[in-house]
């Protein structure tokens, strides 16, 4: 967390632009440079930048922990679900033709779009989960305190019970 006004203003201005750019990279993925990995990282970077400037707790208020936790599983599930759907229709795993059997050429992009959205969601959520895991309990130290990880120690003891 920082109290530097320049950082706070830049983070606040940049964050929505980064989110929009992430969505652009995501939807542009199957016809040009871009795709789920890149979009997910850019999306997560927007929130992590926000979290680094305003503190992890503030970030978790904006993007709640349960969404990023569930999203990291849900995204891969979308990916795997695309494949399992093909399997249920009697095609090999991840054979996108199953989505639109009468038009194989048209089915391929739709399969890719589904897979890329799954990847994008997972990468974004996993990045934020990593940030949350490492910062949770360590953020927002009282002003003037050094960055010792003492709160984490106490929190973890209770967790182990």
């Amino acid at each position: 967390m920082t109290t530097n006004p320049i950082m706070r203003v830049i983070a606040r201005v940049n964050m929505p632009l980064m989110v929009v750019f992430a969505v652009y990279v995501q939807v542009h993925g199957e016809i040009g440079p871009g795709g789920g990995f890149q979009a997910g990282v850019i999306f997560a970077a927007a929130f992590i930048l926000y979290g680094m400037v305003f503190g992890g707790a503030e970030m978790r208020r904006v993007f709640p922990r349960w969404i990023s936790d569930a999203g990291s599983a849900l995204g891969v599930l979308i990916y795997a679900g695309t494949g399992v759907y093909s399997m249920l229709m009697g095609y090999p795993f991840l054979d996108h033709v199953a989505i639109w059997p009468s038009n194989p050429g048209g089915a391929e992009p739709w399969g890719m779009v589904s897979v890329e959205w799954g990847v994008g969601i997972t990468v974004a959520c996993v990045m934020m989960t990593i940030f949350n895991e490492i910062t949770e309990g360590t953020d927002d130290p009282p002003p003037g305190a050094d960055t010792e990880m003492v709160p984490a120690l106490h929190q973890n003891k209770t967790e182990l019970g």
Partner: protein
Amino acid sequence: MELIQLHLPALIVVLPLVTGLLTALLGRGGRGWWISLGATGAVLAATLQLLAQVVYQGPQTVTYLMGNWPMPYGIGYVVDPLNAAVMATVALIGFVVTLYAGRSMAPEISPDRARYFWAVWQFCLVGLLGITITGDAFNFYVLLEISSLSTYTLIAMGHGRDRRALTAAIHYLVLGTIGACCYLVGIAYLYMVTGSLNFADIHARLADIYATWATDAPVYKKTIIAGFAFIMVGLSLKLALFPLHVWQPNAYTYAPAAVSALLAGTATKVGAYGMIRIVYSVMGTDFAFTFLRSDILLAACALMAILVGSLQAIKQTNAKKLLAYSSVGQIGYIALGIAANNVAGLQAAVIHIFNHALTKGAMFMALGCVLYRTGGVRLEHLRGLGRKMPLTCAAFLVGGMGLIGVPLTSGFVSKWYLVQSALERQWLAPAGVVLVGSILALVYVGRCAEAMYFGQRPENSPEVREAPLSMLVPTLLLAAASLYFGIDSGTTSRVSEAAAKFLLGVAP
């Protein structure tokens, strides 16, 4: 039913992946365990079905194209007698240990984190099963890393009991990543030469290159040798073969009991499978063993592993560490079988992969029962347990006899084949070392057995009773299986013979 039959090879990997994700989403409370149990049970059934198909019914290979991309271009899953056997081993151990872990892991994980534990548990199996089934070199690497990353986390779960689990995990992480990277560099070299990542395709293209060496100046020789060396070093790290075994004892010792049993039964075995696959069906033994003579080096490492592992095991005072060092030695037997380059040697390797998974799994699970009741696994904790926990100690003893290779236990069968193959190669000293290894095993198993049956419970130690049924049943199950496959060796030798002859190209 037909649909399931069609997708069987893919289901083995996809099913635990999907259920693992569902566990992470929905597996609150005890549900995670039930989902894992169902998934591992289904995978076990699928692998047994595939094993029966490739060994008994034929044809010998089953191919599954991911996304319907034809094979050198896309990822293909190829089942043959060798990986069907290893897969069945992994799935069997996975299922039995999952059964056991429900009770054994309960004190180690906080209830709100349980679903992530079970998700990681299933991802570990996804990685291990995927490594065995995949026919693609890069897919192998990715699945290797999936299983390794889950393994690091699972080992670190032991930190509630002993904080050294964390350092064991991070040391394994550093070495395991270097090993995986070495594998990746090796694949890059082979890709430079062949332009292919499919195991079968690399093999065919390498064979063309070797054929030109007979007449012309050898081309790409240095590149292929470098690639082979990198891959072998990388896999040896995963396999915990002798000089590269340093990560293994601490990782097994400080991991939770169920995790130790899972790793000892599956992770290093899959590494051994990878080595067989690379040597026999990618590089070809003519290049690897006859041309490079790397069988001498591999055999030397294996013999050192047997001696050093067993000697180190003798001087341990922590029973879990003792078993971990014993695993280093047992891996040596498998590597010796691989180096022997004949049918009996490969049979010994495949049978020992299976038998050692059973015996070590049973022993680690028995120690888990001891840990659950007494709170420690040092030799003084074992003292006098023979009367207090008779069934647990019996399971431990049966496993121990398997390690020694007493006739009528499964260990005897694999050592029989191993000595036979060594004599076939006229390797007298290695055959002798195998026997010396058995004597050393007698010493370290004897130390535990002596403490259990002839030691006295320490003064003012709390009263202990037999382990809970939900932990005891899986332990006894594996011990009984180890006895059964020692008495009736027909199944294991039939399967291993099919695998060995398939790899060496001998008509069955």
